[in-house]
């Protein structure tokens, strides 16, 4: 692996981490689309900053661009507050307008090779190692590594300092306000960090990948954990993994690095979406099927408990009495037998002691409206689930 290759992977990984942190809070605040808006509307800020500084890596340019990001947020909120349009519409109105101003500015004024719309949208990681940071004559690494590295350090410092404030204001803004943690301050703080990260990152990876790195890793992590700290940690891991595997995918396919990283993000999300242990599609379908069978089982047990009459409990007449298809009846009978809840006596089905206890307790819970408790109880009674 050459030095340049290593540097590209390092930049991509650091960008991924710097994006995953604010991204986690954006996802939890249901503001994913605002990152898309910011990533596009910072373009005029970058262009104007570039005219002033003549340097794409100047801190002033980054601040100017971040300011445009904040203006985007303020404009969206202002339009939304009029009550005339909804938030998503407001976002859709603001960022294309700002973005197109940037496009026109570039077309009219910049013949510079580096500042074209393609570079802005897609970035070019492969060129990142060519732009070196020279301090008193010594080469200390690629410029973009230094920029995004500094941004990451600030982001991490802010995260550690204000984790509690971010958490409480994201979960319950009303409580945060009453406790004296101004939700507006935290909101705009988060927006500022998101904007600065976007500007710092998009030069390396482009506007579209920035959005992908902010949203996809937290969205994936959200499906796997119920703990905010773990969600942050998993987001960072998914981001870094996609960055490195995406790089090698691009290497193998001889394709765009940012495109390949985004593809990896999509693939990982899809896999987790399907196979996540609790919230995944397959787990949900399986659980629904299980619950359906178990509800039928409970219905069947209730029937047995309610009817002492042998005719109602004869195995050959069960179908008629509870109006079920043969297959369904068999599934339920098997499940009840496996769990020792029923017994046969000359083709007459009756509840065992355990079956009776289970049914009585379930009835209690249903009557007192504590249905949720039935799920807990199942762990005690079931040897086999439906």
């Amino acid at each position: 692996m050459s030095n340049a290759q290593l540097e590209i992977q390092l930049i991509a990984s650091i960008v991924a981490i710097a994006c995953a942190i604010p991204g986690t809070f954006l996802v939890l605040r249901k503001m994913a689309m605002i990152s898309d808006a910011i990533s596009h509307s910072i373009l005029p800020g970058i262009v104007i900053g570039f005219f002033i500084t003549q340097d794409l890596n100047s801190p002033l340019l980054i601040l100017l661009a971040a300011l445009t990001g904040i203006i985007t947020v303020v404009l969206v909120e202002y339009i939304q507050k009029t009550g005339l349009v909804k938030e998503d519409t407001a976002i859709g109105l603001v960022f294309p307008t700002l973005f197109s101003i940037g496009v026109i500015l570039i077309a009219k004024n910049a013949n510079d090779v580096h500042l074209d719309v393609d570079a802005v949208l897609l970035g070019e990681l492969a060129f990142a190692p060519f732009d070196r940071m020279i301090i008193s004559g010594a080469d200390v690494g690629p410029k973009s590594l230094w920029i995004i590295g500094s941004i990451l350090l600030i982001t991490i410092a802010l995260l550690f300092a204000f984790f509690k404030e971010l958490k409480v204001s994201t979960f319950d803004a009303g409580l945060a306000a009453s406790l004296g943690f101004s939700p507006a301050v935290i909101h705009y703080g988060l927006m500022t960090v998101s904007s600065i990260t976007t500007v710092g990152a998009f030069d390396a990876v482009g506007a579209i990948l920035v959005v992908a790195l902010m949203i996809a890793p937290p969205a994936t992590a959200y499906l796997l954990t119920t703990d905010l700290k773990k969600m942050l940690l998993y987001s960072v891991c998914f981001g870094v993994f996609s960055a490195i595997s995406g790089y090698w995918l691009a290497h193998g396919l001889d394709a765009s690095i940012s495109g390949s990283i985004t593809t990896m993000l999509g693939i990982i999300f899809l896999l987790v979406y399907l196979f996540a242990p609790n919230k995944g599609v397959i787990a949900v379908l399986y659980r629904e099927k299980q619950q359906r069978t178990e509800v039928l089982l409970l219905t069947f047990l209730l029937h047995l408990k309610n009817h002492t009459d042998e005719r109602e409990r004869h195995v050959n007449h069960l179908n008629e009495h509870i109006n079920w298809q043969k297959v369904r009846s068999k599934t339920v009978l098997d499940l009840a037998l496996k769990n020792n809840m029923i017994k046969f006596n000359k083709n007459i089905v009756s509840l065992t002691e355990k079956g009776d206890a289970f049914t009585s307790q379930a009835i209690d819970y249903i009557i007192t409206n504590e249905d949720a408790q039935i799920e807990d109880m199942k762990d005690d009674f079931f040897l086999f689930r439906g």
Partner: protein
Amino acid sequence: MKENKQTVNRTTKVMIDNKNKTTPIAVKVDDLTVAYNYKPVLWDIDLEIPEGVLMAIVGPNGAGKSTLIKSILGILKPIAGSVSIYGKPYDKQRKLVAYVPQKGSVDWDFPTTALDVVMMGTYGNLGWIKRPGQKQKKEALEALEKVGMLPFKNRQISQLSGGQQQRIFLARALVQNASIYFMDEPFQGVDATTEIAIINILKALRKAGKTVIVVHHDLQTVPEYFDWVTFLNVKKIATGPVKDIFNDDYLTKTYGINYKVSIHK
């Protein structure tokens, strides 16, 4: 709370009842007007809530009950008027006040546990940047115990029933160890068992000398649960002891329809 006692001593006293007993005013609202999009939802409210009452705020939908609480707590900015807690602005008295928002106001799918939500109640005393430690955790566990939710401390909050979620919110307020508790419809969507558990905790708070202010919907239970009531419908209709003012007259004035209640007695 030491700080609390001092504040109480300095505040204005007011006479309530006819027993010549003086009780400090816990919450005082003066000429409060709040508007959404230039439409007033609260109009020139004057309100004095004496210390140690368990008070219901009742009124029809859209009467501004939640708005009143939120304005007292500084969550909403009024267009006119002022609020004081024991004689001082809310900003200076945050630590004396705990707030239980409506259960529906938060996203219960948020990745966090019951214990963690209760810990949030301790953040106010910690202030910015400082992190909760063992002491805060211990307090949170005690609060969970009080509402009977200790066995569920590590549950993800989306896996709690509506009643359990409400108890978690209550525990979060208890952990603040405040003097005044504001609750926005704590009985909404909870089962009978939880309702009784909650009202018992509120009554215990009052017994301990705390002031409890509850936005309440169920008129039937007002005389049984509360000793003080405020009728609100954009304007304040009346406020006072339940036994004196909870009658058909004020109910009719508040709800606009002819109220024939045989509720009390």
